C-alpha cells in the first residue's frame, strides 16, 4: 500500500478541465517532485489532496483510507500538512503564536503547544524571529514560517508548494538543507517547484504535468530527457 494514491482524479471548473485523470503514487519515505509549466494544475492537485476542493471524479487515498471530499482540517488531523505558494501568515500574531496555533492540532494544552512550537521554529532555524509579528517578516522567513507551521501539526506527509520561489541563493541553500532535514526525520514529501536545480537535486522521482494531465513520470534524469516534457516547457517548433 502506498502512502498516497491518486486514482483517475479529475477536477472540472465549469468547462475547464483543470486536472484530468491524474494518477500517481507516493511511497512512504519518498520525496516526489511535481513539475509543469505555469497553470498546468499543480496547485489544484494540492488543493484536491488537502481537501480544499473535492475531485469531480476519481479517488484519493492516504494510508489506504479515502480522503477525497474530506474537509481540510480533517485531512490535516489525519497527518497530511501543506504550505501555501501564496504565503498565508497569521499577520497580527507573532511567529511563535503562528506555530503554536497549528501545534494545538495535536494537543489541548498551551504549554505543550508552546513546546512543539519552540521545537518546530528551532528545526526550521527561525529562533531569532519568534517574537516578530508574522505580517512584518521578509518573504524568505514567511516561506519558512509556512514550513514551521506545517511541521507543528506533526505530519506524516508534507506538501510543499513552491517554498523556494523568490528566495536568494543563500536562502535556497538553507531551505534545501531544511527540507532534507525534515525528510530525514521521517516525513514523506510531495513538492512543487520551478527551480530545476533544486527539484532535480532533492527529488527521488518526478511527475510532470501539462494542461492538467500527467505527461511523464520517473527519475529526475528520465523526466528531464523526455521529449514531451521539453516540448511542454519550451514549446514545439513548427516548420
Amino acid at each position, binding site marked *: 500500500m502506498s502512502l498516497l494514491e491518486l486514482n483517475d482524479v479529475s477536477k472540472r471548473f465549469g468547462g475547464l478541465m483543470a486536472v484530468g485523470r491524474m494518477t500517481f503514487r507516493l511511497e512512504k519515505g519518498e520525496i516526489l517532485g511535481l513539475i509543469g509549466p505555469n497553470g498546468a494544475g499543480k496547485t489544484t492537485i494540492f488543493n484536491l489532496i*488537502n481537501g*480544499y476542493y473535492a475531485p469531480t471524479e476519481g479517488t484519493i487515498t492516504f494510508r489506504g483510507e479515502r480522503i477525497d471530499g474530506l*474537509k*481540510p*482540517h*480533517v485531512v*490535516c*488531523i489525519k497527518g497530511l*500538512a*501543506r504550505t*501555501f505558494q501564496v504565503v*498565508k*501568515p*497569521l*499577520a*497580527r*500574531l507573532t511567529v511563535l*503564536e503562528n506555530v*503554536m*496555533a*497549528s501545534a*494545538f*492540532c495535536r494537543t*489541548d*494544552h*498551551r504549554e505543550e*503547544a508552546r513546546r512543539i512550537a519552540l521545537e518546530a521554529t528551532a528545526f526550521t532555524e527561525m529562533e531569532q524571529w519568534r517574537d*516578530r*509579528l508574522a505580517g512584518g517578516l521578509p518573504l524568505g522567513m514567511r516561506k519558512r514560517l509556512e514550513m514551521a*507551521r*506545517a511541521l507543528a*501539526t506533526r505530519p506524516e506527509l508534507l506538501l510543499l508548494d513552491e517554498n523556494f520561489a523568490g528566495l536568494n541563493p543563500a536562502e535556497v541553500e538553507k531551505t534545501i538543507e531544511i527540507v532534507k532535514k525534515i525528510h530525514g526525520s521521517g516525513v514523506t514529501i510531495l513538492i512543487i517547484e520551478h527551480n530545476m536545480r533544486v527539484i532535480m537535486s532533492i527529488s527521488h522521482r518526478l511527475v510532470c504535468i501539462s494542461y492538467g494531465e500527467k505527461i511523464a513520470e520517473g527519475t529526475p534524469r528520465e523526466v528531464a530527457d523526455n521529449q514531451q516534457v521539453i516540448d511542454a516547457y519550451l514549446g514545439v517548433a513548427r516548420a
Partner: protein
Amino acid sequence: MNRKAIFAATGLALLAVFPLAVQNPYVLHLLIMTLLWVLLGQAWNLLGGFTGQISYGHAAFFGVGAYTTGILVKSGLSPAAAWSGLLLGGLMAALIASVIGWICFRLRGPYFSLSVLALAEVLRLVAVNWKQLTNGAEGILYIPAFRSKAHYYWIILAIAALAFVVIRAVMRSKLGFYFLSIREDQDAAESLGIDATKYKLYSLLISAFFTGAAGSFYMNYLGFIDPGIVFSIADISIMMILVTILGGAATLAGPIVGAVIYILVSEFFRVWFKSGHLIFFGILIIVIIIFFPAGIVGTIKERRAGRKLRRAGAARESAAA
C-alpha cells in the same frame, strides 16, 4: 501572583466598595451603565474583534435576554425571582445564536454579518406583533426588585468581571488561538487542522450568552423595555461595535476604555444638547478611526511594541559593532 493580577484585584476591590463610600444615585447610575457597556463591548469584541466575525445585529441577543426576563415577570414570576433570567436570558440568546451560526458560519464573507442584522429586525417585529407574549409596542413594565442602586451596581460589576475573566482565559487557551487564526486567514486555519465552522460557532455562543445576560440585567434594572429599545440597530447593535472600536477591538482593555468614554461623553453633552448628544460621540468615533485606527488601547499597544522592537534592534546592532 504577578503585578498585573494584584493591580486588577485591587481595582476590583476598590470598585466593589465604591457604593459604600458614594451613595449618589446619579453617579451610581452612570457607573452601572458604564459596566453594562463594558459587558456588551467584551461580548461583541470576542466575536468581532478576536474572531473577526463582524455582527451588525447583536441587539437580537440583547433583546432576547431582556424579553426572556420581562416575559418571566409578566407570566407571574416575582421581580426578585426574575434575576434567574440572567442565566436563562443568556441561554436563550445562545440558543437563537446557535441556529443562525449553524446556518451562516458554513459560508464566509458578509453572510453572517447581514443575517444577524436581519435577525434583530425580525425579532423586533415579532416582539411588536406577538402581543399576548410581549405586550407588543407597549412594552413590559414592572417595579424592579431593589430600591438601592448599590445592589444593581454589584450585580453588573460581578457579571462584567466574570465576562472579562472568562474571555481572558479563553483567549489564552487553544480556543483563543483558534479564534485568532480564523480571523487572520480562514484557509490557513483550516489547513492547520482548525474546524472553522465549529470554532466560529463557539465564539458566537459565548458572545451571545453574555449579551443575553446583559439584556436581562437591563430589564431587571430599568424595569421597562419595548421592542424599539432593546432591538435597536443604532442604540444597541451599532453602539456595541463603536464602543469596542473606540477603545480598541481585539484588546481586553479596549471595551472598558470605550465604555467609559461613551458614557462620559454622552452624559456630558446630553446636559446641553438633549438627544443631539450622540453627534459628539459620532465625531469622536470619526476622529479615532482616522487618527487611531486600532482604537485607543490598540494604538497604545502598537506604539509600545514598536518601541520594544526598535530597542531590541538597537541592542543587536550595538552587540554586532
